[in-house]
């Protein structure tokens, strides 16, 4: 477990698939080894109308996510709220809570792709899909040896620049609040949630490609 950061690059004038191929080719040229596949998915639940009346508050959105890197876990989080790490029986509990929390079926979003190992870095390039359509790309870079974000952010940045060039992002918000705290998988899931929300809000990427 290390420190990770995510970006969402979309190349000018290229489709999602072409950008993914470009990135993976660059990684392979660097010398990274393919190491299987990964999948991160996210389902959205909102408080059912029947519960709202008694609580007198606006419905909140709850995200339930899974990450193939942690196959026995389930992550449940609220935007700007706590992130619960639970085992996979949490999904069974959500079925029991059907009357109180309704799943917004149409907004299930996931990213799937290949894992690349390059020395201490683990890079995952995935295509983000909502239903049948590809909506963007996610790139996750994990630096294994370090668990304190502030200690290795500059190293991560340098590595990102080497294969992303101009698309390198700024520091993720999860790093901002608690720079010296130990990084945990829950922080990775918060980043994925923010990434998915950004992609959801974006217009569907047309074939011609826009930034």
């Amino acid at each position, binding site marked *: 477990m290390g420190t990770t950061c995510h970006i969402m690059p979309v190349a000018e004038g290229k489709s999602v698939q072409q950008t993914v191929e470009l990135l993976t080719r660059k990684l392979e040229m660097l010398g990274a080894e393919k190491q299987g596949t990964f999948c991160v998915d996210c389902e959205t639940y909102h408080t059912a109308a029947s519960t709202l009346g008694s609580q007198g508050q606006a419905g909140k959105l709850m995200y339930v996510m899974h990450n193939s890197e942690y196959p026995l876990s389930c992550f449940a989080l609220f935007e700007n*709220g706590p992130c619960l790490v639970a085992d996979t029986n949490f*999904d069974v509990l959500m*079925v029991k809570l059907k*009357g*109180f929390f309704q799943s917004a079926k149409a907004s299930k979003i996931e990213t799937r792709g290949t894992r690349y190992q390059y020395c201490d870095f683990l890079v995952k390039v995935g295509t983000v899909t909502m239903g049948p359509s590809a909506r963007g790309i996610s790139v996750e870079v994990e630096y294994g040896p370090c668990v304190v974000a502030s200690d290795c952010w500059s190293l991560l940045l340098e590595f990102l620049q080497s294969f992303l060039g101009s698309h390198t992002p700024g520091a993720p918000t999860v790093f901002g609040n608690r720079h010296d705290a130990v990084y945990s998988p*829950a922080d990775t899931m918060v980043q994925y949630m923010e990434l998915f929300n950004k992609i959801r809000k974006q217009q569907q990427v047309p074939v011609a490609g826009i930034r």
Partner: protein
Amino acid sequence: MEAPPVTMMPVTGGTINMMEYLLQGSVLDHSLESLIHRLRGLCDNMEPETFVDHEMVFLLKGQQASPFVLRARRSLDRAGAPWHLRYLGQPEMGDKNRHALVRNCVDIATSENLTDFLMEMGFRMDHEFVARGHLFRKGIMKIVVYKIFRILVPGNTDNTEALSLSYLVELSVVAPAGQDMVSDDMRNFAEQLKPLVHLEKIDPKRLM
């Protein structure tokens, strides 16, 4: 309201519905030692295990008549143990000849921010207590002998007082739905504990 037999419900998402089979009884404080002695002889050979747990019961009120109940339990004497979230369904009223109380159960291990998360979901704490006692195992059966302590100041688990002069004894098994022979094994084991303690099927609704 009777819950439909869980064995008839579809297996959702590839998971099997687990059921908890339960028999309960109690012993007065002065009989505890003899019961522990008998259990040590009957149960699997292991180091005597004691526990101190803090349990909080959360309710989510909706427009349905009965609120949704979740139980959050944490260990007070084992640092680093995950929190335990438990859902227990309505007791199944199927077979009158069934020897144990059967109800659907979902057990989830979670991280420490469970209470914050439940509050964010809309749950509110109904009551809490501390349970202190002994744990025994025989095969898949779990026997727990514990005393319930009332928490005098909410959130303060050091300041407690015993709820009664007795210990609650529970014999339980968590098994996939449809395995009714489990309750026969439980009844046979319960027979061996008589007359020290009478374990029986206690319907929680009849007490209210």
